[in-house]
C-alpha cells in the first residue's frame, strides 16, 4: 500500500497541471461501468427471471423483481433433483481438489528435492499431459472407464482427473522460490522428506495452495462434457448437466423459465463464492499484485 503514495501525488499534481485529467478519469469510470454492466447483464436477467411467478415471464418487458424467488428455488431443489445434483457436484469437486493437491504435492516434492535419474524426462512426461485434454482421448477413455465398471459412478467423475500437470508445475515453481537457507536447515536437522513436506513446505505454501485449490475447484465444478457421457442416472448426475436436463424439459413444454433460471443461479453460486472468498490467494497464484 505504501507504493500508492507517489502515484497518488503524481496524479494530484497532474490534475492541477492538466484540467482534462478529471474529465478523462470520469470517462474511464463510465467506460468501466458500462463494460462491467454488460458483463453482468445476462446473469442479472437470470436472477430477475428466477424471482418471477411461473408462466408470467413469457411476456417481454415486465422484468421487475417478482415475489416467487423462495418458491422457485425450493421447487428446483426438491422437485427437480437439484439438491442431489448439487451434492454430487460438491463431492466430485472436493475429491478432485484434494486428490490433485495430494498427489501433486508428492510429485513436486520428488521433482524439486530429490536427485534421481531421468528427472527431466519425468517432469516432461507430466507436463505433456497438458496436450491431452479429454476430447483427444475421448472414446478410449470412455471404454476404459466402462471396462473398469465405473460407468455411472463417482469414481468415473473423479479418478481420471487426479493427475494435474498445472498443479505440479505451479507447486514446483513455488517450491523453487522457497529460500535455500530453509532447505539447508532442514537438511542439517536430518528431517525426513514427508516431515519436510508436512512441517515446512505445506505451511510455507498456504496461500499458493489456497489459490490452486480455487482454480481446481472452479475447473472441476464447471466440467460438462465428461459427466454428460459417463453418467446416465439422474441420481448420480452433476449440476452442470442437470441444468441442461431442465432445458430439455422446457422444450418439451413441461417447465417454466423461472425454474430453469433458479437452477442456473444455484449452479453459479458455489464457484462464484469460491472466487470472491479466495480472490486474494487466487490473484497471487496468477501473479497479480494489487497496486
Amino acid at each position, binding site marked *: 500500500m505504501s507504493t500508492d503514495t507517489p502515484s497518488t501525488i503524481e496524479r494530484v499534481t497532474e490534475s492541477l497541471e492538466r484540467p482534462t485529467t478529471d474529465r478523462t478519469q470520469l470517462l474511464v469510470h463510465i467506460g468501466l461501468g458500462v*463494460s462491467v454492466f454488460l458483463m453482468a447483464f*445476462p446473469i442479472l436477467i*437470470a436472477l430477475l427471471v428466477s424471482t418471477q411467478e411461473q408462466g408470467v415471464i413469457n411476456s417481454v418487458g415486465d422484468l421487475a423483481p417478482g415475489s416467487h424467488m423462495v418458491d422457485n428455488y425450493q421447487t428446483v431443489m426438491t422437485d427437480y433433483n437439484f439438491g442431489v445434483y448439487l451434492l454430487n457436484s460438491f463431492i466430485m469437486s472436493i475429491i478432485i481438489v484434494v486428490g490433485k493437491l495430494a498427489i501433486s504435492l508428492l510429485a513436486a516434492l*520428488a521433482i524439486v528435492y*530429490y536427485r534421481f535419474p531421468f528427472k527431466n524426462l519425468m517432469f516432461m512426461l507430466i507436463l505433456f499431459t497438458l496436450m491431452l485434454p*479429454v476430447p483427444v482421448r475421448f*472414446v478410449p477413455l470412455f471404454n476404459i472407464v466402462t471396462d473398469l465398471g465405473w460407468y455411472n459412478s463417482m469414481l468415473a467423475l473423479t479418478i481420471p482427473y487426479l493427475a494435474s500437470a498445472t498443479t505440479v508445475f505451479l507447486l514446483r515453481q513455488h517450491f523453487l522460490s522457497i529460500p535455500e537457507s530453509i532447505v539447508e536447515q532442514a537438511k542439517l536437522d536430518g528431517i525426513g522428506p514427508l516431515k519436510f513436506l508436512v512441517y515446512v513446505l505445506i505451511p510455507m505454501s498456504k496461500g499458493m495452495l489456497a489459490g490452486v485449490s480455487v482454480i481446481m475447484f472452479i475447473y472441476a465444478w464447471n466440467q460438462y462434457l465428461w459427466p454428460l457421457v459417463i453418467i446416465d442416472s439422474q441420481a448420480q448426475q452433476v449440476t452442470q448437466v442437470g*441444468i441442461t436436463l431442465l432445458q430439455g424439459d422446457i422444450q418439451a413444454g413441461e417447465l417454466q423459465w423461472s425454474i430453469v433460471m433458479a437452477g442456473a443461479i444455484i449452479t453459479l453460486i458455489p464457484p462464484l463464492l469460491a472466487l470472491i472468498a479466495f480472490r486474494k490467494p487466487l490473484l497471487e497464484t496468477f*501473479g497479480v499484485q494489487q*497496486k
Partner: protein
Amino acid sequence: MAREIYDRSWLAYLLLLPTLVVSAIFLYYPAAQAVNLSLYETLQFGTQRVWTGLGNYSYLLTSSDYHSSIVVTIAFSLIVIVGVMAISLVVSYLIYEVSVGQSSYLIAAIWPYALPPAVAGIVFFYIIHPSLGVLTQPIQAIFGVNIDWFTRGGQAFVVVTVAVIWKQIGYNVIFMIAALNNVPDALGEVADLDGVGRFQRLVRIYMPLISPTLIFLVVMNTIYAFFHTFAFIDILTQGGPGGATNIMIYDLYRNAFEFNNHGLASAQSVILFLVVGVLMYAQLRLSDKYAHYG
C-alpha cells in the same frame, strides 16, 4: 543444486508414482488407443471393428461436411481469440488506469471466470430466444434484423460466438492486469508527459511490454476455443442450423455418441490433437521471435 537434499531414487519414484499411474492409465494409454482405434472402421453400432488403415482419415479429408466443420472451427476460433483479447485488453487497461475503485472493478470484471459454461449457455439461450428472449425485440428494433437463429446459420454463429467471448473475458483480464501491474510506473508517466494519447500508449508501450502474457493468452484462448466451448454448442445450437456452428469437437462427439462411429471419432481426435499441437508450436515459436521478454 543445493535444493536436491534427498537422493534415494526409489523413494522419488514412489512419490511420483500416483501422478504417473493416473497419467499412464487415463491420459497416455487412451491417447495411444485413440491412434489405434482411428485405424478401424466401426460397424453395427459400435459392436464390430474392421481394420481400415487410413480409411477414416481419407474419408474425413474428402468429406465436404468435415471440410465445412474445419472452416467453421477456424473462423470461430479466430474471431473468439481476437475478440476476447481485444475486449479484455481494453477493459484491463481501463482498470489499470483508473485510480479509484480499482479492486472493485477488478472483481466485477473477473467474475465470469467462475461462471459455468453450461449456465452461460442456458442464460444466452433464454435472453436471445427468437420468440421469448428479453433481448430479441430490442435488438430487432435497433438493428432492423429479424432474429431467428434456430433456422439461420449466420445468426446462430454470432450468438454462439458472443456467448463464448463473453465467458472468457474474466480469465484474460486476470492475466492482463497481472502483466500491466508489472510494467514500471515510470514508463507510462514519461509517455504521459510527452503527450502520447491514451490509446497510443496502450498500443505502442504497454502491448509490446506485456507481449509474453499476450502470447500465453493466445495459446490458452486457442485451447479454449477448440475444446472448452463444447457446452455452448451443445446447449445453444447442437451444431446447427445446417452445420453453421458444427465445430470439430462437436462433430467428434456426435460421431462417437450419437452415431457410435468410434473409429471415425478417434481419427477426428487425432486430427484435433495434431491441429492444436501445430498451432501451439507455431504460436510459441512466434513468441520467441516477436515477444519482448523483460
